[in-house]
Structures are given as C-alpha cells and as structure tokens.
C-alpha cells in the first residue's frame, strides 16, 4: 500500500549523491537500492522548488520515494529556498 508521508528526513549519501540510508521516526533504513531516479520542476507557480526524485527499495522490500529539494528554478519573491531531503511516499 502506498501512502504520502511528506516529512523531512536525514539522509546519508554516497559520494555520488545516491542515498545510502536514512532515518525516519527514529528508525534507520539501510541497504537502499535505487530503483529509478528523475527530476521534477515542482509547482513553480506556487514557489515550490525543483527536486530530484529517487525511488529506493530497502532490504525488506519497502519502497521509498525520496525528494532532494534543489534551489528554485526561478528566484521567487520573499525567498523560498529549500534544501534537504523529503520522504514523499512509502509503499509497504
């Protein structure tokens, strides 16, 4: 079952930027394998930043969709920069 989570998480990455493990709700999810990765521009009209999306599977077969928020494509009034990782969706 897939559900949207939308929470910031701490992610440890390999040198090439691929997530290796992350912590969510006090639990560490390790042994992550990348299923696929892509980029999205976000709701630019509402000031949302662009992001890289990484779908990963852990050792127990759970699938996580992590979003790496980038600087916004177009500078927005009042700022709005957002960095870091967001756990967007979980399928378990």
């Amino acid at each position, binding site marked *: 079952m897939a559900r949207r989570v939308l929470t910031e998480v701490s992610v440890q990455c390999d040198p090439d930027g691929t997530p290796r493990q992350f912590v969510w709700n006090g639990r560490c999810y390790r042994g992550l394998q990348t299923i*696929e990765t*892509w*980029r999205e*521009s976000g709701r630019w009209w509402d000031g949302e930043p662009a992001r890289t999306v990484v779908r990963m599977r852990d050792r127990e077969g759970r699938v996580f969709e992590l979003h790496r928020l980038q600087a916004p*494509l177009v500078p927005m009034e009042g700022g709005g920069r957002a960095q870091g990782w967001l756990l967007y969706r979980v399928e378990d």
Partner: protein
Amino acid sequence: MCVHLHVHSAFSFLDGCHYPEELAERAAELGYPALALTDHDNVSGMIRFVRACRSAGIRPVIGAELTVMGKREEAPGQAERFHLTLLAATREGYANICRLITLGYEHGGRRTPAVPRRLLPEHSGGIIALSGCRRGEVPRRMLEGRFEEARDAARWHREVFADGYFIEMQRLHLPGEQRLLGMLAALGRELGIGLAATGNVHHLRRADLPTHDILTCVRTLTTVDRPHPERPLNAERYLAGPEEMRRRFAAWPEALERTEAIAAHCDDDVLDLSRPRMPRPAVVEGDAGEFLRRLVFQGARRRYGTVTEKVRSRLEHELAIIAALGCEAYFLTLWDIVREARSRGIRTSGRGSVVDSAVGHCLGISDIDPIGANLPFERFMSLERSQLPDIDVDFPREERDELVRWVQERYGREHVAGVCTFPTFRARSALREIGKAMGLPEEEISLLARRLRGAEADRIEEAMRAQPQAVHQKTPAKRYTHLFRMCARVAGLPRMISTHLAGIVITDIPVLSYTPLQPTAKGVVRVAHFDKDDIEAIGPKIDLLSLPILGAVEQARDVCPYESIPDDDEATFRTIRSGQAIGAFELQSPAQRALHTRVQTASKKDIIDSIALIRPGPGMGGMTENYIRRRLGLEPVSYIHPSLEEPLRHTYGIIIFQEQVIEVACAAAKFTPGEADILRKMITHARSRESMEKLRAGFMEKALANGLSADQAEKVFRCIAGFAGYGFAEGHARAFGEIAYRSSYLLRHHPAHYFAGLLNNQPMGFYPPNTLATQARTRGVRILPVDINLSEVRTTSTDDSIRLGFHLVKGVSDNLKKVIQNCAPFADIRDFCRRCRPSVRELESLILAGAFDGLHPNRRALLWQAEMAARDAARKDGSVQGRLMDFWPDPPDIPDFTESQLLSLEFGATGITAACHLVSLLRPRLDALRLLTTGDLTWMPGGQKVRVGGLTVGPHTPPTRSGKRVLFFCLEDEFGLVDVTCFEEVFRASGYLAFSEPLLMVEGTLQRRGLGHSILADRVRPLPGSLSSGRAVKEALSLPEPHINASAR
C-alpha cells in the same frame, strides 16, 4: 564535441519558446559548430534559422519532427501517431521532407497533420532519420513492453532509411529513462543501428521552464493545477552545453560523437537561397524582355496617345532597371493576371508603390499616371535597393478567389502557393489564454481584459499600475505576477500558421522543393510555410487583394458606369466637405470627416492628401495641424531651402508622402533617387541612436557639399527623420484617392444604388449596415424590408429605393437563400414551407425579419404556427431541428408584437430596421428628458452645453502621442450621426460604457471646427429604460400553448 540535432523553435507552435535567431546565438555562445532545427510538421523558421546560423558562424542543419500514422490505418481517426526526427542531408532530402509534411496535412488534416507510414519509403531519399523522442514508435513500444514490435519498427525504418537511420537517445531525467536507454542501446547493438544523442530542446535555459509549461497548458487547454501527460515534468529540455551533454551520456559517448558526424554529413545549403525563383509567364512571344517592351509601348500608346520623349525616356529607364534585376517574367505574369480579370469584367486597381511605375501603368496594372503625377519610379524599384518588386492589385471580394483559382489552373497548382502569416500573442489574447492556464476565474480575466484594453502584451504590468482596481483581491498576488510576466514573455510569439489575406507566390519550379503546402479553411490555394518576409527568399510575392468597394460600385453600373464618372464634380466635393460623407471609401471615419470640414475639400488633390494625413498612429497629429493651418492660410508656407520648393509646394511645404522624402534628399543633398529611397528605408528601420547618427552624418556631408548651410542641412535631416516612420506612399494615396472620389460621387448622385452596393459587400468600411441604411434614408432613399416574394439573395436597388436581400437574414443557409430566389413567388407561408423546406430556425429568422409581412401581417401568430409545425415534425421524424413537414396549423387569435418589439426583433434578425430608426420610437421619451437630436446640433453654435441620446456606433481608442487614452465613438439617431470624444478621465469614469451599452446619453460641449461639429463629452450614461430589453423580447417571444386543435393537412 556534439551537436544538438533535435531542437524546437517558437515555430513549433505553443511548444517551442524561442525564435531561431535566439537558438543560433545561444548555440554559438556555447561553442557548438552546428545546430539543427526540427519543428513539429513545419519548416516555417527555416529561412530565419539558416540566416541566423550563418551570421553566428555555425552550420545549419535543417529538418523537422514529423508526425507519422502507425501501421494500422483502418480507422484513420484512431490511428496511432508517432514522432520521427528527420534531417535533410541533401536538397533532395529537404524537398522530401517538404513533401512528407504536405502529405501529413493531406492525410491527417489541417490541424492534426500525420503522414501514413507507408508513404515514407517513396520520399526517403536524402534524409537522415532518428527514431524520435518517447513518442517515437520504437521507444514507445519499448515503454509499453512490446519489444518485438519495437524491434520490427526499428528494422523497418532501417530498411527505409538504410544507413541514414539512427536510434535516438534522450537523457532528460524522466521516470523509466535509464531502463529505456539501456534497451535502446541494446537494440542498436543487436540490429547494427548507430545511436545518436539528442536533447529534445524546447527552450534555451532551465529558467525558461515556466514559459514552456504555460505554452503547453495553453495548447492542451489545461491549467497549471492539473496534470497533463504533455506538460514538461522538469526543466531539462533546454539547450544544454557540451559539458552537460557529456555528463548525460557518459555511458554512451559514441551516441554523442555521432551527432557531430551526422551534422557534418548534412549539406549546409539544402535550402537554396541563392536566388529567388521567378514565375514562368504563361504568355511570351519570343524573348521575355522584348515581349515586355512591346506590350509596354503598346500600352503607352493607349494611355498617352502620343508617346512623347518624356514618356519614352521614363519607360526606357524603368525597363532597364527591370531587366537588370531580372524581373521581366514577374511583370509579364501580373499583366497576364490583370488582363484575364478585365476580360471577365472584373474591376481591378493597382495599389501601393506599383502606382509609381509607368511600366505598371502601361501594362494596365495601375490606372494612375505616375509621369503626370511626378512620382519617382525608385520608390517602387531601384538598382541601389536591388530588392524584388512587390505588386499589389485589388479586386472585388467575390471575384478575387475566382481569379486565384484561375492562376492555379493557368500556372499549375504545383507552382502556386499562398503566403502564410503567424498570428502572435497580443495583449488580450495573452491575458485570456495565460490567465486561463494560470487558473484565474473567467470573470477576473474578463475584467482585466476590459480594463487593459489597448495595452501592449509586454507592457501589461505597467498598465496594471495605472488600473489597480482591475486586480481582484481574492486571487493570490503571485499568480498575477506570473500572469504579467508570462504575457511579456510570450508577446510576439507565433501561435499558428494562418493565411495571408492576399499574398501568393508563383515559381518556375514546383513550390514543394522549397516549402510544404498546407490546406486552408477556405480551400482556395494551399499555403506555404513562409510569411511575407521570408517568402521572398523563394520568389517575389504578388498580392491579389480583396477590396469590397470595387464590388460595391458595380451596383450602380447600369445607371452610372464607374469609368464615366466626371473628374471635378462640385456637388461631390460639397458633400465631402460637409463632413457627412458616411459610406464614402476612405473618407468616412470621424477623423477624415473632421479634416475635410476644416480644409474645405475642393479637389481630388485634397482627397489624396487627406488619405496620407489621417493614418493610424500617434505621430501624425502635429503634422496634420501644420498642414491645415498652411492650407487655410493661417500660417505662411515656408521652405527650409529654396531647393525644397519644387517637391513640397503642392503640400504647403510639409512632407506627407514617402516620395517626397526621396525628392527632398535628391534636391537638398543630390542623392540619386535610388540612394534616397535607401536612406528613407534605413531611417524607417533605424533602431539605435548610433545607426541614426551614421545616416545623419552621410546626409549632412552631401547636403553641405550641395551648398546648404549646416543649420539648413540639419533641419532638413530632422524633417526627413521625423517623418520617415509615418510616411504614406503617394502612389497608394492617389490610387485610393481616385476610388474615394468616385465612391463619393456615387454616394452623392446615386445613393440608392451605392448604399445597396455597400450592403451587398459587407463587412467593409467603418460603419455597421444599420448606419448605412440610416444614411441612405436621410438622403431620401426608401428602405424596403426583406420580403419573401420581392427580395433576392442580394440587396437590390432602384433609383430611389433599396430592397433588403436575404443575405442580411441571420441563420439562413446560403442554399435556402438561393432556393427562395428561384422558387418565388409564394402564395402563403405553407406554400413556402412545402416548396423550400426550411428548418425551424431558418423559418423563425425569416419571420422575425418580417419576410412574410406581405402575406401574413401578424409575426407573433406566424411564430406560433411555426412552433406547432415544428413540434409535429419532431414527433414524426424525431428530429428537433427537422425540416417542417406539411402540417401547418391555423393562426391563433393572439396580438402581434408591439412596434418597438417588432423593430428590435427585425434588428436582431437582419442588423437593420427598414421602416424607421430604432431611436425614433424613443423620441417622445428623449424629448421628455430634453435631449437634443443630432439634427439640432447642425445649427447650434459651438461652445454650448448639450445632451444627446442615441445608438452607440464604432467605439475605438486609437493610440495617441501622449500615451493617454482617448475614446471616439458616434451617437446615431433617426436624423444622423454625431461624433463624440472622451478624454482619459471621462473614459475611465463612464466612457467605457460605449463598449457595452447599445443606447447612451452623452452630456458635453458642442464643438465646431470648419463646417463640422462634434461633442466633447463630460459624462456618458446608459439611456434610461430601453427599446425592448432582452427580457421583454424574450417574454414577447413566449407563445401561448395550443388550447384548440389546430387543423391538420
């Protein structure tokens, strides 16, 4: 190094974001040696692209992204469509791409081109094909998991294109892409097909993503808040630099390297722009140049009687330039077309700069004598300018298309094409479409559009600051920010291909060698993919224009043939200078009428000058005032230098014609006429202070050498420079002035026939049909209503009456109109229904128009009968819109509509009230309000405060020099028209009502200038009450239910 081989410009309409020039410039900046252009099913950007690439020092690669129908075509409407990227390796390849695109339009439709896949093999020579983006057949099948079909498709394409077929790889950071690329690479290895890396470029930089997304939303009719599969997921479809491309294709370096090899393999001159193609004249006896000469001198003897030395030397001069520029065939073709038109009795009139050509005059293309009028040929053609001529000829609207069809038969359909235009985003269209795409509510968009009327798309934000009340408080401010920025961003971007109203090109080789051809809505001629600016790279354009007035004047031919109109009719000039020549060609606008009352027009020359003086644009105002003062002797006529008296005497020392710029430069600075015309053009197009300064320096040097003082030379240059942008061609003014004078003559002496002609040739002119009918009525013409037994399809006329025709009745098909004319007379409405089989809607329209009043005086009863017959018909054949059958009930005993309702309904059905003016019914009420009539204003002195009521006619806000908005409109009553002016304050407070209210009351000051008068408004209000409000009409139209059995057959 690599080369981008899949690139979209703004000519991938509502998909690409940049012009070809911007793409070429950016590619050169990034260090690319070449760039391809592959717009969707068109090559419209190609000429600009080739020129821009050459100018930027990079090699152009020409192609297109073709839409292809899949294998299964049994149901063409449901055939799958794929994309295929094509590049022209040779000229044959380019011609094949043009043919394939043309076939795509033929098979897939005007708006949704798609070429059947089976036609690719026949037209594959000289083409390099790439398997396409995700919408290509091979990648799509792979994404669908249909691997065998993907493999078959790749094999098939390789058979068709042999070594010229490559698997296209795109790394755009999309879901599923890694897997897809792996499969594509594997397929390429398996089948021995090379890989080619592309960027599927739609914009220049990542930051342009919002523009691309908005254009996609506009194209797919969706909003930013809704997902759509065509919307870009990210910003990666930009013109990435070489480093980024290397990163993207690190795993497939050979795919990147191959792109440079492919680009090098494509010839860089596949589009032959070396020389324009001339038509091959259908009639030539011997050498074309000699044949032209013979025709010209034959024509000279007809035009001038004796060919004097002046005439001969002028003709020889022109023929020499025509020969030097290789344009004999072009002139012979025009002669052929005009000759054919005249042999069919079709009136023609050359316009524009061809009027400056004595050769054109002798060939019958133009009827104005340029030698007698002292018009320089160099305004039309010169060796110095060495540009192709551009000849414009007017025809009556109805015959124009007939002639274009003849041209295609005569010269061959494959050798003739229409010229296209590219409608672009303007302020209102940008606001509406982008507003919708941004998800703004319709009412907010409409309010914005109304309030920002007249603003340019790229200045909307600025205009908004002056109209803060237009912004709705509920919509988030950032949406408005995006909206205005997007409007500025898309301003001027092309939205689609449309047809140029008049331009065609005729070439000696098939047009398909240069451009695809696309069918048009009207279907008269297929249209090329190039507009009037680019088409000249292929061949000289001919403009065969519709000028409805040429059809209108034919209405009077039996009583007053056009050619027989005398030249100097004082009664005609009196009508023009009274300011009441409403309906006269070119002389009827409020600005024209005001001018003629002030200058006291007394000759054709005054008319010709007025056509040049009254022009759209803010620049003319000061010059017009100077002209009027000098014309009336209120200011002395002076010349900056005595040499300017000759060219400027006839316009009181003021430059008003482009030809005068040439003459002044020749007189003051000894330019040759050709040099002077180049100066004129360069000043017109000068964009920077530096370029203007260069021109000034050149002029000053020659003027000083000619003996002018520095001060004089400076003043002359300022005069030329100030004028150049607004000038009007005198030849054109003379051609139009001749028509304007003759139409005024017919208006004055044969108003019934003339106004009937105007009604038969709508839409045209400045005023709606009802105003024209009112004007006819004020001149003693009886307006007779549409009558089922007495009317024809067209409006007819006698010496003192006009019978309105069926063409005016809305909602009646052309076919029914002809049937009625052929079957009349009718005994009664039943007879009519039996013999003509109208639909319910058509019958109702005719009833409302009063067409049956002669047979059945009660229209309301007739409508009831029609309704009952329609219900019966629907019961029998199930069709609500079915034709009326034989059943027709007896008339009910119900009162007819009131007089005002009858007039309102008639106005709604035809646009005209025959019996009397709508406002005459309101007269008692207007008198009670103490409102004056337009007739009262004609004798009142100026400066008085007045209040007038009437119908609103022709509101408009032309641009002004100050940038402030001024509203002009007319108020019309049963006595005539009065012009009303609202300055900015009044416009904002209440004047805007002129755009929405049909009946208005205006309070203001009566102004008199010359013989004319107008109102300077202080306040504008809707007229209290109304003739028949929409609700009252609706109530009147509700018919009683039958409570008795109507009689059967």
